């Protein structure tokens, strides 16, 4: 197990390195694209562009610029923004992280509970009416654009029904849990529900499919022949074997979301998380910030991948010995 884990982590580091190179190349070295021109704006004169180029050190050779940026980012921790010169990037990201974390954690709790319940109920009642009903909601959940759902929720809670049913819903924004836990939760309530809706659908569908497959396996036949109740068979045998894949899926999704994949939800609900920061920096082409955000996000995705691989080996006794 240990050797496997170490190998996995080493390959994760290599992947992170490659991603950093890739990001750098995209933003600084796409053929036909001149970063200085972009920063200077579309209507800049050649002199201004040349000035920008020199100011930001863009006239140095590519590998040198890469090393310099990485150095500022990881070692000296003093990478500064293009857009707001002098403002350090890393603190910005760190400030945004707890917001994203609050959003993702709350939503994760909701979607796991709802998704697992949905999948179990659908599988237990397969063939009866509630089964395709739950599955239809699952498909609908996947088909809804995240940002649109957020806007619709806003529409209903802030405008249409704001004076009546939803008068208690606060305006968008974030409140730190440290200063006021109740307001923190209240502000996050609808963002949680919106983000959770998307994922609950997927999880319910995946779990149902896994459960139904498991229920057709030989070991379930043995369990029946042992005289166990259908409920016990579903919850103790089939579910336990199906949860393994759900856990892997969850690890990957959670990692991606912590890294800022919820940017649309954050933007729609006005939550200043990492995703929001990414969005803003992309709009203004604030390259150092973009770089930092992307690396931040990629780090968690890669970490989550590695953790899930290791966790999978831990959860499935069959895999444990093989590794």
């Amino acid at each position: 197990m240990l050797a496997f884990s170490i190998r996995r982590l080493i390959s994760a580091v290599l992947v992170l390195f490659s991603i950093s190179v890739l990001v750098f190349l995209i933003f600084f070295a796409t053929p036909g694209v001149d970063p200085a021109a972009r920063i200077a704006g579309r209507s800049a004169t050649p002199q201004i562009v040349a000035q920008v180029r020199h100011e930001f050190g863009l006239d140095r050779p590519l590998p040198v610029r890469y090393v310099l940026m990485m150095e500022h980012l990881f070692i000296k921790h003093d990478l500064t923004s293009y857009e707001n010169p002098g403002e350090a990037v890393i603190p910005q990201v760190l400030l945004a992280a707890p917001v994203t974390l609050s959003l993702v954690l709350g939503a994760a709790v909701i979607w796991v509970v709802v998704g697992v319940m949905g999948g179990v109920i659908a599988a237990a009642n397969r063939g009866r009416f509630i089964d395709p009903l739950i599955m239809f909601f699952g498909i609908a959940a996947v088909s809804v654009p995240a940002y649109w759902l957020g806007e619709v929720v806003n529409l209903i809670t802030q405008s249409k029904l704001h004076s009546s049913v939803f008068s208690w819903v606060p305006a968008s924004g974030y409140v730190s849990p440290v200063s006021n836990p109740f307001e923190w939760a209240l502000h996050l309530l609808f963002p949680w529900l919106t983000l959770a809706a998307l994922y609950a659908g997927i999880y319910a569908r995946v779990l149902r499919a896994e459960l139904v497959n498991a229920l057709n396996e030989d070991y379930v036949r043995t369990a029946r022949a042992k005289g166990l109740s259908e409920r016990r068979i579903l919850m103790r045998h089939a579910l336990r074997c199906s949860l393994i894949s759900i856990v892997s899926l969850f690890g990957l999704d959670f990692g991606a979301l912590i890294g800022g994949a919820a940017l649309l939800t954050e933007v729609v609900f006005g939550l200043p998380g990492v995703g929001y920061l990414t969005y803003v920096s992309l709009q203004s082409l604030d390259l150092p910030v973009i770089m930092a955000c992307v690396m931040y996000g990629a780090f968690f995705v890669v970490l989550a991948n590695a953790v899930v691989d290791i966790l999978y080996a831990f959860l499935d006794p069959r895999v444990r010995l093989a590794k």
Partner: protein
Amino acid sequence: MPSDPTPLSDAVLRVSDLRVSFSTRQGIVQAVDGLSLDVGRKEVVGIVGESGSGKSVAMYSMLGLVRDANVTITGSVLFEGREILGLSDREMQPVRGGEIGMIFQDPMTALTPVYTVGWQIVEQLRAHTDMTKRQARTRAVELLAEVGIPDPKSRVDRYPHEFSGGMRQRVVIAMALSCNPRLLIADEPTTALDVTTQAQILDLMEKLQGTYGSSIVIITHDMGVIAEMADRVVVMYAGRPAEIGPELDVVRHPRHPYTWGLLGAVPRVDAKSRRLTTIPGTSISPLDVPVGCAFAPRCEHRMDVCSQRPLMRGDGSHQDACWLSDEQRVAIRTKATAQEASS
């Protein structure tokens, strides 16, 4: 109805005219077509036939393990005098595992991979008795020892994939016997194992039968297993019983041409080498069962009357479903012996 060698009070299992059919898009498949058999106390009954003969389906449908929504099951199955056909899941649960134990064909997939073997045996024990966890665990270790698992105290906490195929089958047997069932049903218990392990498992089952006193129904396609273990034999073809009787009678004086084929196909070490007989033709599709005798299309001795389905008939405990008369059989046998002698 055939005359009854086993008085009702002694029959652990009495199956009467069991019929199982599936309605599929291509038509009705009659998987089991009128099976009747008795299993007495401490008796080993072997059900033999090729794949598709309906032998497994018959046993599964008796216990309500057929979960297909398109199935129709009729007939009567009396277990210890009680009708168990048509009982709900709830009513069957105490019977399954508690009074009737089952062993399945593929030991590699029969156990839940994420729980230890000890946990799975304890689960069954606690489902049917009111043992405490500790008592159940002790019993589990005892059972593992009885089925020949070495070092049972530590092996009880191992996962199924840490056992070999033969060992896993032993665990399954231990689990099936854990609640002292009166009847044990074994569906091709040795088919997936190598020859040496096969012999060990069969020996084990015989030994345990002596200890526990349960009756056994063993399903197989291998006449060798029948010869080794069975007291009585049911030969099935296309969902119908072809021949029933005490094992020695059926093996020494087989009456149905299908049984002749099955026995002729067994290689023998003692007799001088001769070509193994194969039964001509291929086994029929369950959708194409002919109106008369199911075996007629492949039978070398078919007659006109075979277009009518033969009923089970015979004297005493040895019955067969064939139109051949005893004289005809003697003639066929004489001819065959003469041929063998001259070749």
